[in-house]
């Protein structure tokens, strides 16, 4: 048996590094879609809950009750995919964790704490609908929001540490001998990155939820329930968008000062110079020239430091040896994703402005069909924007896993079977993703049929419609 297995394993000797990278990228890309819902949906639910109690608004209360149940499903899937990530740190990057775990791992200790808190209070909130006094129940939702905020800050602190490693000393052999946890957590990159991801969570969560209700409205469900659902969620997204652009601008300038090579990849700058154009689209060639795209003269220099304007010098890719910068292909990915992020972000900003102007001048949301179409697309667009931004920061850091300290290829596992686990993970996640959407849709359909709040035997959704439950709904509602 063991001999057969060994022989079988020998057949599949494949370089694990690209597969480990692909698997990590895939699982993170999946998990990051659930993160905004876990972080910001509780906040939106509390807004609806507050409105429901304060103004005795039956629709808002129903909305809060249903949202809390959807939230439980997405939280469950997020918890599972998050658990897989903790396996993967070790399974895919054992040498990274073995050498840097004592520093890099610290933020995760806090994340675990917040995750636990969030899980407990989601349970309390779900249970509390029928067991607590209304306002006491409302307050049990607040820890979910706080835990979501601090949990995501903790995780991003770990990622920021990879961009700006700090808080440790090394011996001559390169082993970590002392650790300063405060400096690890509050590393240079952490405030910018944490703010950027946190606001992204509200932006994406808001637009994602709003897009569902916009779709419902386009299908003719123009009742008050859909209206409130849309307005709460879209307002959260629309408020977050301009804030996000401001933070993004600050973060880009931080990258310009602290990760010049990543910045060069973002702006497609092959050689160090001043008066660098901002190239829209376009690509880098193997010989180091840039072709295609629309260059806006001097804009990249000007944005990097407005005080020196077009004279600002931007470091080029060739300022470091080829083995310390992203490859040409990676550079092109970074630049394209940057353009996607900025482009779609701008689009979402314009949509938010439209919404705001309509509220200011007409005291209502835009009535036009075009707006609803765009709003219905805004969820997917926001997710793409976030994914693109995440690719920029991750691929832009290549070839480093710990910036200037350890390369990705030195961090990966030696197990040659990673390509198999990659396919297993992709198939399983595709299944989980599809089922999640089907289940949420199924819940929504049953909620619509039930027209009320029933939670007898399916804690994640209303039970199948039976005569008895219809009757009890009529008497209760």
């Amino acid at each position, binding site marked *: *048996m*063991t001999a057969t*297995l060994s022989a079988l*394993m020998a057949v599949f000797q494949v370089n694990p590094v690209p597969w480990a990278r692909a698997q990590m990228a895939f699982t993170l890309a999946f998990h990051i879609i659930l993160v905004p819902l876990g972080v910001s949906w509780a906040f939106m639910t509390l807004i609806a809950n507050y409105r429901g109690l304060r103004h005795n608004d039956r629709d808002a209360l129903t909305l809060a009750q249903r949202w809390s149940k959807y939230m*439980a*499903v997405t939280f*469950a*899937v997020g*918890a*599972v*995919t998050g*658990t*897989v990530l903790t*396996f993967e740190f*070790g*399974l895919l990057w*054992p*040498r990274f*964790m073995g*050498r840097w*775990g*004592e520093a890099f*791992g*610290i933020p*995760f*200790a*806090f994340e*675990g*704490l917040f995750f*636990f*808190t969030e*899980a*407990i209070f989601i*349970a*309390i909130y*779900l*249970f*509390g*609908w*029928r*067991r*607590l*006094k209304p306002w006491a129940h409302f307050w*049990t939702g607040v820890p979910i929001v706080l835990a979501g905020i601090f949990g995501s800050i903790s995780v991003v602190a770990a990622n920021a540490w990879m961009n700006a490693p700090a808080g440790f000393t090394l011996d001559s052999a390169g082993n*970590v001998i*002392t*650790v300063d*946890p405060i400096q690890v957590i509050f590393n240079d990159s952490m405030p910018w990155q944490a703010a950027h991801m946190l606001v992204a969570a509200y932006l994406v969560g808001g637009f994602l939820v709003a897009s569902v209700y916009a779709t419902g409205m386009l299908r003719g469900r123009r009742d008050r329930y859909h209206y409130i659902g849309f307005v709460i969620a879209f307002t959260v997204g629309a408020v977050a968008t301009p804030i996000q652009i401001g933070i993004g601008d600050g973060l880009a300038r931080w990258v310009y000062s602290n990760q010049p090579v990543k910045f060069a990849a973002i702006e497609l700058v092959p050689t160090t110079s001043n008066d660098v154009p901002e190239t829209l689209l376009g690509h880098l060639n193997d010989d180091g020239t840039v072709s295609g795209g629309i260059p806006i003269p001097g804009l990249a220099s000007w944005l990097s430091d407005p005080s020196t304007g077009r004279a600002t010098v931007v470091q080029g890719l060739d300022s470091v040896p080829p083995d310390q910068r992203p490859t040409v292909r990676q550079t092109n990915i970074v630049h394209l994703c940057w353009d996607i992020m900025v482009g779609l972000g701008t689009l979402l900003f314009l949509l938010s402005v439209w919404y705001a102007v309509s509220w200011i001048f007409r005291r209502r949301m835009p009535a036009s069909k075009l707006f609803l179409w765009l709003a219905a697309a805004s969820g997917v667009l926001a997710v793409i924007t976030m994914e693109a931004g995440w690719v920029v920061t991750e691929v832009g850091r290549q070839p480093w896993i710990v910036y200037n300290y350890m390369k990705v290829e030195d961090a990966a596992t030696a*197990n040659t079977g990673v390509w198999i686990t990659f396919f*297993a993970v992709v198939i399983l996640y595709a299944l989980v993703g599809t089922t*999640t959407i089907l289940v949420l849709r*199924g*819940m929504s359909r*049953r909620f619509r049929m039930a027209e009320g709040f029933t939670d007898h035997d399916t*804690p*994640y959704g209303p*039970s*199948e419609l039976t005569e*008895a439950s219809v009757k*009890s709904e009529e008497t209760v509602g």
Partner: protein
Amino acid sequence: MSTAVAVVLLLAVVAYAIFGGADFGAGFWDLTAGGPERGQHPRDVIERSIGPVWEANHVWLIFIFVILWTSFPEAYASITLTLFVPLTIAALGIVLRGASFAFRKAVVTLRHRRTFGAAFAASSVLVPYCMGAIAGGIASGRVPAGGQAGDPVRSWINPTSILGGVLAVAAVAYLAAVYLVWDARRLDEGAMVEYFRRRAVIAAAVVGALGIIGTFVLRADAPYLFDGLASRALPLIILSVVCGVAALVLLVRKASRGARLLAVVAVASTILGWGVAQWPYILPETLTFSAAASPTGTLGTVLIVVVLAALIVVPGFVLLFVLDQKGLLPEEGVDEEPVVDRPTIQ
């Protein structure tokens, strides 16, 4: 300080086994409950007893990993490099299990329920087996020190690992059956009380038999662990046996309430015994806890987080428990059914 963190690590393993283990064990009984009609009744009890917030139990596993990689990174690297295959199977099993359980609750048609139910039940058995096999590989000294990979196959297909895997499945099934007796009683399901009581007795007998077989396996295959169990850890093992036998007696005499606590103590003291037996090694005979430990800055932070967790999480748990015991508020409508979802654990 590394000793304190090692104790926390061991306690987290115990918590995962007792709280998470029961969920896995319930999956075992789900798997063996028979066809959709015959098995419907026990499955209903199982579904209610696990409760909607099962995912909170993943936190124990996450804590174990986080403590390992922050406080003993060298050992963590060795373990993940060597035991790549069973860890991967466990990870995939957790995804399948978690997702399918949540979805089974959310879908309504029988066909869908069966598909998700089968995935849930099968992975519920696979995951504890892998965990037990991993523990066996570590305990029998098959994971080398220094962030090195050991034998990728024999590290988890070996006598101690097989013992560990089978014992883990049997132990979680035992725990779950004991809890389910209690749940069935709360649900006032007399037939189900008897159903799970019988299974608890059988599972207890199997665990006991495995324990006896295990003595011989460990003496031959994991001498360091065996010596530790026969000396340092002997009081814990005796405690485990006494509690196990007492629980069995109570189960046979249909006194399930005391049996629950005794069963927990029996399983917990076995795991503690494992930890004490392989002390001072995290990887027996090659790497000690103190040699693998991170700098004090890291260990101190981990301990602070543990204290914070106790301060924040315990009140939350208490609130959840109180809510669970509390009836529904009359003005918000009353369910026809008694409140049975146990919120998190057990």
